């Protein structure tokens, strides 16, 4: 049985809540890995370079693109949350602001993705 719709359920706010949690968890676990791989600079230049070289492979290049996407969504949805917490104007327009997050996301990814993919797959 589908739960009855409410003001919140199934709308922009709920989906952004889910996006915020999912991207937050993904970024957190990447951060644990990222600090650990950077720590290899204290082992030797070779050890660090070897591990970082794997970040330059196509598969990791795509994962990095996903990570940047997650960071952009989390960052600008975070700004939306701050705005909604602090201003009644933002509270009234929180749905429009949710769409604004996606517009900013598309614009920034359009700037980042071609350049990053050229770095990863060659041609730049």
């Amino acid at each position, binding site marked *: 049985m589908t*739960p*009855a719709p*409410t003001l919140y359920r199934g709308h922009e706010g709920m989906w952004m809540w889910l996006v915020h*949690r999912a991207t*937050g*968890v993904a*970024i*957190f676990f990447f*951060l*644990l890995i990222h*600090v*650990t791989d*950077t*720590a290899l*600079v*204290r082992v*030797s*230049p*070779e050890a*660090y*370079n070897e591990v*970082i070289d794997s*970040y*330059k492979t196509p598969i990791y*290049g795509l994962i*990095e693109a996903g990570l*940047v996407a997650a*960071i952009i969504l989390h*960052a600008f949805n*975070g*700004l939306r949350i*701050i705005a909604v*917490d602090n201003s009644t104007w933002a509270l009234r327009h929180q749905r429009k602001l949710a769409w604004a997050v996606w517009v900013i996301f598309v614009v920034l990814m359009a700037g*980042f993705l071609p*350049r*990053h993919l*050229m*770095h*990863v797959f060659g041609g*730049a």
Partner: protein
Amino acid sequence: MTAPELSTPRERIRSGRMRRNAERWSWLFMRFSGALLLVLIFTHLFVNLMTGDGVQQIDFAFVAGKWASPLWKVWDLLMLVLAMIHGGNGMRLLINDYAHRPRVRTFLLWLLGIAVVVVIVLGSLVIFTFDPCPLDASGDLLSGVPDFCKDVR
């Protein structure tokens, strides 16, 4: 249409029981660190992935070049500490939301706390003790060090 009936809500996790204002500080910290992290991380991503050869340029010499400047050391340290506490606090909220069995929750919170402390300590030690020109046993520069090491010696 009748309003959906609410089932009995679960008891709230009283994570603020030790200090009365703990959750208020948590809320405030997430907002301020979040705004600051936006600037810190977007700059980090731009410099490392957009300028020069992007991800291809990143190697030991690149890191050594950046950390030759105190600005980037402070930048990375601030990013490390703020991001780990911000992320750790976010994970704490998720554990409180989804781990209902008290023993599991306690275990996960301890695991999280240890992970956050270990990563902050490890990362800080790396930044503070970083040697851009490490030598091998016979006193020669290791391969992969930045070019400026030859001038320094």
